[in-house]
Every structure is written in C-alpha cells, then in structure tokens.
C-alpha cells in the first residue's frame, strides 16, 4: 500500500516536471530537409529504389537531407488533406494519377518549365495535367489493367492455354467451359468497390471511341448512355452467369482476390501492370510459364483492335507551400531518373514511366506481353471519373450484386452524381 502511494507520488512529480519541460522542447533543424510523403517507401520490394533516389540526390546536393515518410495508405488522402488545408507539411508528395491528382491541383506547383528535359523520355504525363494542359507531377510508373490467367486451369477445362479471347462472345465461351469443368472463371473482390472499378474501366477501354472517352471526362457521356449502361448490365449478367465465386462483396480486391487467384481457385483475374497484382507476383506463385495475360475484350463496339488500357500510374508532385520549390522540383524529377527507374523496375516489377529503362532482360512470358503493349494503349476510363462518381459506383456495384437495385436505378443515380460532380 505504502509503496504504491510512493510510486504514485513519484509519478506525479515526474509528470509535473515533464509538463514544465514541454515549453523548452525546441527542435534543432539541419541545413535543409526535404520531406517526402508516400505509401510505398517501407515496402521491402521498393526499398532499393527509394534508397537509390535518396543516395543519388543527397550526393548531388550536399547539405540537403531527403526524408521519406511512409503514411498508411488508408489514411493517406485524409492526412494529405489536413496538411494542404494547413499549408504545412511535406515538400514532395506521391499521388495517384487521374482524379486523385487532378482534384488536388490547386495545392501543387506547376512544373512545366522545370520538367521540359524529361518530357520526351518519360511517359504518362496526362494523368497529372491540369485543365490548362500544365503538368503538376512527375509520373514514375505506368499503370494499366490486364487480365491474367492460369494456363494450368485452362488446360484442365480442355481449353487451349495459348488462345486468348478476342471478343466478349469468346470470353463468354471460355467462362462457360471453365464453369462446366468446375472452375470459377474470374477472381473477384469488391469489398471496397475496386473490383467493379477495374471491370468497367477494362471493359470500356476498347469499347469507347476517343471522342466518347473525352466526353466521359467532361461529363457529357452519361452513365445511362447505351455504351456505359451495357457495361453496367454486363456487370450484373456476369454475376448471374456464375463467373465469380460467392462472397465478392466481402472479399477485398487487395489482396484477397489475388491470393485466391494465386491459390489457383479461379482461372482469370483483372490485375495491374505495376505496384502489385502484376506479372511478377503471379509468376512467383504460379510459375512464369503458367501465367498468361490478355486484354479484356469490349462488351460491345470497338474497332476489333485490343489495346492495353494504360496511363500514368503514380507520380510525385511539389506542394505549393514547400519553402524549397526548386530543390523539391529537382527531387521530384530525380524519382524518374533512369538509374533509379531501372532499380524500380527490377526490384518491384513496376512498369517504369521512363522509356529509357532497359527491360530486355526480362524472361517472364507475361511480362513480355505487357511490355510489348505499352506503345499503343487505350485510356483508363476510371482515371477520368470524378471521386464522387467512383464512390457512388462502388456502392451501386455492390447493391447490384445483392439485388437491392436495378441497372436502370443505378445508372440514374450515377447520372445525378455525375451531373453534380462535373458541374464545377
């Protein structure tokens, strides 16, 4: 009893001392520190890339320290939002291309005159450009949607593993055959709605004309238009036809869906070109010669050509409130330096935005297909969809699966959200 009292009192004194020293806790600053926010630098596969960027930049700029702060991806945009609102925080930030970058352009510095020397060598700028065509971030990866398939399961179902579908009807036939063999056709995780995102974006890539893609970006092509509605209808039909396993709404796309594909529980999955859920990862589980890749055929329309849907993936922007504008822009550029990009490609398997990276040594058959498709791509529709629409589509896509809504009601609701979001 006595001892506890003494401990309690000692603790109290300590606490009081602590409170009093709080005011004194001033921080000593080094010469110049550039703070970078991302959600990747702690990932073991990307560490070599980040180490390289930091080492090279610090060697070229004595007295400057580069500090990577990895934020949990869950909270990333909330944290970035608070930093932007307070005009204090990181100098350089990683952002996703498309609407996540574009909706935050007022907070980023214009980079046009600073990146002129990169323009030719690096691809993927459109996803980080403002309405005026100016560039606000340096892309570091090319992202896209490809269908990966399990050749072993194709063989088991009596399919030729080297023949990939060129039209939706052919894909339908493949799924029917797989189903008859007792194999689930597609892995699908739609807990956060990403499964539905990938589906409509991949299905639209070769279905829409360039004009229609542009009309989508401006909000003139509606969800209720025949082209888009047909895709929403297919979303529902494919579920009814038994393309997916039960429980898609409670399966996270990252990584539950892909893990089930890696366990050979299903034959196809819509995956990515960079970051994760790509050839490098599937090769590891299914063996390279067993992994195939193709472009999802359009639901309807198209010119018969299947272009890989791709765009700038992620990129580095400079915040307007950074006190070191020039240095920060230099740093953003150095993320796309060829030697660093080479490391990024080799260790993480990301498709680099830098076209000078040597990819010739890759052995993986699916990687060869992916890399060969980069020169002629189709736009990624979901990158040009407003966040409000995307959130609503996540919800509607889930309710279409549970049967709580119909295609007509869903597209009507999405039209409303689209009209409101693209009004500005």
């Amino acid at each position, binding site marked *: 009893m006595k001892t506890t009292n003494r401990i309690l009192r000692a603790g109290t004194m300590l606490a009081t001392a602590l409170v009093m020293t709080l005011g004194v806790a001033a921080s000593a600053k080094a010469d110049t520190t550039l703070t970078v926010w991302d959600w990747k630098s702690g990932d073991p596969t990307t560490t070599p890339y980040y180490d390289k960027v930091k080492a090279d930049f610090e060697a070229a700029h004595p007295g400057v320290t580069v500090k990577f702060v990895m934020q949990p991806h869950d909270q990333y945009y909330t944290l970035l939002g608070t930093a932007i609102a307070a005009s*204090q925080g990181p100098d350089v930030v990683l952002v996703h291309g498309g609407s996540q970058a574009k909706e935050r352009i007022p907070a980023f510095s214009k980079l046009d005159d600073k990146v002129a020397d990169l323009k030719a060598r690096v691809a993927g700028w459109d996803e980080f450009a403002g309405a005026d065509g100016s560039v606000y971030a340096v892309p570091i990866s090319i992202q896209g949607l490809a269908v990966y398939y399990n050749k072993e399961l194709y063989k088991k179902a009596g399919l030729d593993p080297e023949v990939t579908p060129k039209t939706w009807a052919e894909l339908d036939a493949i799924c029917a055959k797989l189903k008859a063999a007792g194999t689930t056709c597609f892995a699908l995780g739609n807990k956060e709605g990403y499964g539905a995102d990938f589906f409509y974006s991949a299905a639209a890539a070769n279905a829409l004309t360039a004009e229609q893609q542009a009309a989508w970006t401006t909000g003139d092509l509606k969800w209720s238009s025949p082209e888009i509605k047909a895709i929403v209808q297919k979303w529902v039909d494919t579920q009814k036809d038994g393309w997916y396993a039960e429980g898609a709404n409670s399966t996270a796309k990252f990584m539950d869906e892909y893990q089930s594909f890696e366990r050979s529980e299903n034959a196809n999955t819509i995956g990515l070109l960079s970051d994760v859920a790509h050839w490098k990862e599937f090769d590891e589980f299914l063996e390279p010669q067993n992994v195939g890749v193709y472009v999802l055929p359009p639901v309807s329309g198209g010119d018969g050509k299947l272009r890989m849907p791709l765009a700038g993936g992620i990129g580095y922007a400079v915040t307007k409130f950074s006190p070191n504008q020039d240095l920060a822009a230099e740093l953003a550029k150095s993320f796309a330096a060829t030697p660093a990009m080479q490391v990024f490609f080799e260790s993480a398997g990301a498709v680099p935005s830098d076209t000078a990276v040597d990819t010739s040594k890759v052995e993986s058959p699916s990687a060869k297909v992916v890399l060969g498709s980069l020169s002629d791509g189709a736009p990624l529709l979901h990158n040009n969809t407003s966040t409000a629409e995307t959130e609503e589509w996540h919800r509607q896509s889930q309710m279409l699966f549970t049967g709580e809504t119909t295609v007509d009601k869903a597209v009507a609701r999405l039209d409303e959200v689209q009209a409101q979001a693209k009004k500005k």
Partner: protein
Amino acid sequence: MAEVQTREKRILRILSIPMALLALSAIYPVFFAINAALKTRKGYVLDRFGITTDPTFANFSQAWNQSRLSEYFYNSVVVTVGAVLVLLVVASMAGFALAILRFRGRKIIFITILVSLMIPVQVVLVPFYRTMIGLNLIDSRPGLIIAYTAFFLPFSVYLMTAFYARLPRELFEAAQIDGANLLKVWWHIMLPMGKPALVTLGILNTLYCWNDVLISLLVLQDQRTLMVGIAALRGEYTTNVPLLAAGICLAAAPIVILYVIFQRQIVNGIAVGAVKG
C-alpha cells in the same frame, strides 16, 4: 431448499458451456495471429487457417528491424507513459476542485468538459491539426503527449470527480482544522485517497494511448508510434499478412503482458473506480 440449490447448480453448469465457448472466441484471435505470424508469406496465402507445421520466426525479426518497430516501440512507451502521468495529475486536480471545492462557474466548467466527451475525433480533425501547428506541437513527442491528454481528459475528469464526490467529507474537515492549504490537501489526501480511481484511469488511458492510430498519425509524422507502424504495415495492399501478424503480436505483447500481470488490479480497479461505493 437443498433441492432448489442443486437445480440452480445444474442450470449454472449447463450455462457454463456457452460461456466457455465465448471465452474460447475471446482467445481465438490471439491463436490466429500467432499462427499466422509463424508462416511464410507464401505459406499463408496457400493455407490461411491450418496450424503451421514448419514455423518461422523471420517475420518477427523482419518486423522488428526492417520496419523500424524497435524505434516506434520506444516512442510508444515514452508517449504513453508521459501522457498517462500528465492525464492522472491534471484529472485528479480538476476532479478535486470540481467535487470538493466550491467556486463560481463550477457547473459550467463540468458540463463543458462533459460536452467535449461527445465530440468525435473526425469532427475536429482539420481545426485540431491547425491548432497543433499554430502551437508548434507537430512532430514532437511532448506535442503528442499534450494531444492525448486533451483527447482522453474529459472521461478522466468525469471519473475523478465522481469518485471524489463520494469520499467522506470528514477527511477534508480534519485537514482544514490542521490548516493545510489546498495544494497540501490535494497532495497528502486526495492523491492517496484517489488511488483506486487513478489505477483504473491509468489502465484505461494506457490502453487508449497505446492503441491510438489517428491522433498519432496527425501529430507525429517523423517519429512514429507502434500502432501507426502496424497500420502502415497494412500498406496500400495488405500484401503480407504474416508480417502484419508478427507486428500485431509484437505491438500487443506489452499490453497483454501487463494485463496478465496486473489482471487482479485491473479488474478490481475498474470495479472500485467506476462504481458508487
């Protein structure tokens, strides 16, 4: 009478079966996490629920070293201990004044503190962050200690006030005859007398501070705390469940060990602190 008692006992015995199942469910997550942490990433993907036959400790060492968890661990300890001590001192002082002393505005102050108990963190996120910046408290451990104190204080003040209000008044009367001043009364009487409630609050606040993610994320951006480190392990795409599980085990271990050691005090403390005697 005896018959009634045996029937009662039989009913209790039958009821203990569902209660035991519930107890098992409370333990299962621990088993699951440890089991997963002992698998390799590939091993986990291929078999998630099976008991691992070929355990590896690589995840633990990787989580500890590569993910800077050892550094985060230190931060968590410093911040949690600091915040809990400050919380106890501030709450005990306020509780003493609100429960025992009489002064104008007492009720308003008490209600203000209670109202703040009902403001969800999300509601004040942006203004809170700007306030922290304005006071130059971002990116410092003392800053996080202050933030935790501010967020977890209302409940602590409430509990201390409720607790002190129930103490027999003779204590203070005796003190005032001795002519002790308020500070002495607080130090020599209130703090020792408040021990049961202080222990309860110490435990609860340790849990809150240790387990917090959101406030810590906002305030400490370079120096991280352990739970934030764990949350970051979840990454963009929960790629590596065994690594995450290993991190979870490491992060929860201190709390679980504390709980096992102080189980009796915790149970009694919550009892005495929360209940009108």
